[in-house]
């Protein structure tokens, strides 16, 4: 699962929708095994479109879960027509974090109900036991 996908996944339990704690999930850094997929090429325009849709505070919080506390607290802003060299450096870093970083094995939990979800073979499993479904 790409780091980026963590930005779209909340807890599957319906009751947790009433809380603000069901997104993002809390990633267990010790149990998460990361890999860099070097085959994914850097495409600044593609990335800018994605950054538009990203919940930045969730990016920061999951990055911290996974041991990276170097992100700025507010979303970097770019003017897409005119990207400076500095912009390109930031975008490349974001490409590495959001697109290339793959969570191969891992564990994450809901901050509200505490249910634990697993990532196996890069695929997150959001299924629920019957008492939570």
């Amino acid at each position, binding site marked *: 699962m790409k780091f980026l996908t963590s930005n779209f996944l909340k807890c*599957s339990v319906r009751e947790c929708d009433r809380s603000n704690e069901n997104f993002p999930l809390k990633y267990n850094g010790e149990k998460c095994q990361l890999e860099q997929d070097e085959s994914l090429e850097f495409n600044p325009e593609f990335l800018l479109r994605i950054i538009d849709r990203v919940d930045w505070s969730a990016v920061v919080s999951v990055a911290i879960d996974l041991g990276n506390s170097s992100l700025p607290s507010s979303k970097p802003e770019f003017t897409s027509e005119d990207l400076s060299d500095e912009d390109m450096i930031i975008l490349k870093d974001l490409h590495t974090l959001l697109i290339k970083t793959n969570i191969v094995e891992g564990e994450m939990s809901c901050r509200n109900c505490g*249910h634990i979800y697993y990532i196996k073979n890069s695929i997150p*499993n959001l299924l629920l036991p019957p008492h939570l479904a």
Partner: protein
Amino acid sequence: MVKKYLLFMVQTHLNFRLAELESLADLFGVKTVDFSKYDEGSPFFIVELENDAQARAWISRSILTRGIYEYWGQGTTYEELHREIQANPLFKQFKAEYRNSTFKFEFDSFGGSSSGKLDRVACIESFKYLEFQGKIRMKNPDQVFTVIEEYEPLSDNVAGEKALRMFFGREVQKSDRLCGALEKYDLKKRPYKGTTSFEAELSLVSANIAQVKPGTVMYDPFAGTGSFLVAGGHYKALVIGSDIDGRMIRGKGSQTIKANFKRYGESLQFLDVVTMDFTHNALRSDFLIDTILCDPPYGIRESIKVLGARDPERFVGKEDVEIDGKKAYLHRDYIPTKKPYSLDALLDDLLQFASQRLPLNGRLAFWMPVANDENIETVIPLHANLELKYNCVQEFNKWSRRLLVYVNRGDGFQGPTNAGLERSKANFRDRYFSGFN
């Protein structure tokens, strides 16, 4: 100022062809086409467009056409064709514009062929009044001029030998079909596929009618082996899929959905597939999904199941079971139980989800099979916020499947709804396995 163009289409999937053309015209802001002149029985459609750029945008993605040409003339004989070309009000302008271009001639036909009886060199010579001065170049010429002959087939499968009419034009854009899309996505050559994989042609057509756009997000809630994800990726959307059956989306060894995207050189378009019950959705509610495209399960090759216990009594207290001091359901290899669900309820959920997640004018497209019994009425699911835009039928022997396409019109639309009703009286699975008797 508009100009005439000749659209050359394929005579297959006629139920889908107009929907594809209209959807692509709408997607690219092509407003000058008079669709009331469209004839399902003909592979030719003469349209008016503002310029070549519009023609290119409109047809470059099309699967059910062959190409679009600047219209120079037509005739029932070559003599008439030449007279018509020279009588075209733009003839002088055409001549001047392409006077020094490198060029070549191509021949295409529909419904038959001259089977070698047409002397192509002599035919090309007969156009000498065009007075082209440019070099003839077989590879990458500036312009390709095309003669298209229409034959009357002797029967459905027997090619005709007598040309009924011929068209002449300058090629502006070949369709995605002619640029190799069907070969590229041919299931036979796909690394990972399964019994539920959807064929390349109609999955690409579906993506066109659903107006999948570059740089937007497409979601398939019943991803299976990822056929529609691949189609969405081809049109440069960022695609995400989910499926309640983890085995399907996982693949086997090197045969995975991810590997398919790699093969197609579209890895960047593939976000992820997640194991998830669509009805217990884990995509955050403010995550904008531009298009939903899918083939829901119908119980033929895969059953309709959602999370939960079929017999809840059997599971009372099971949440307290512990293994090695840890709740059983929190173990990494825990497999939750699932219960059967009705197709009507699943489709109601899908329409409701689409109405909540799609932007205004965003499209939901999905496939639905129906038995062709005369005495059973097919009821199409409807939602108050969604306009049913297309209902395209693909006929098989005793059953058919439909591509249903909805446009999200928002709360103000207040269209008819039949949510919560039992629409399908006869279970499609039962009908299928009893041979529709």
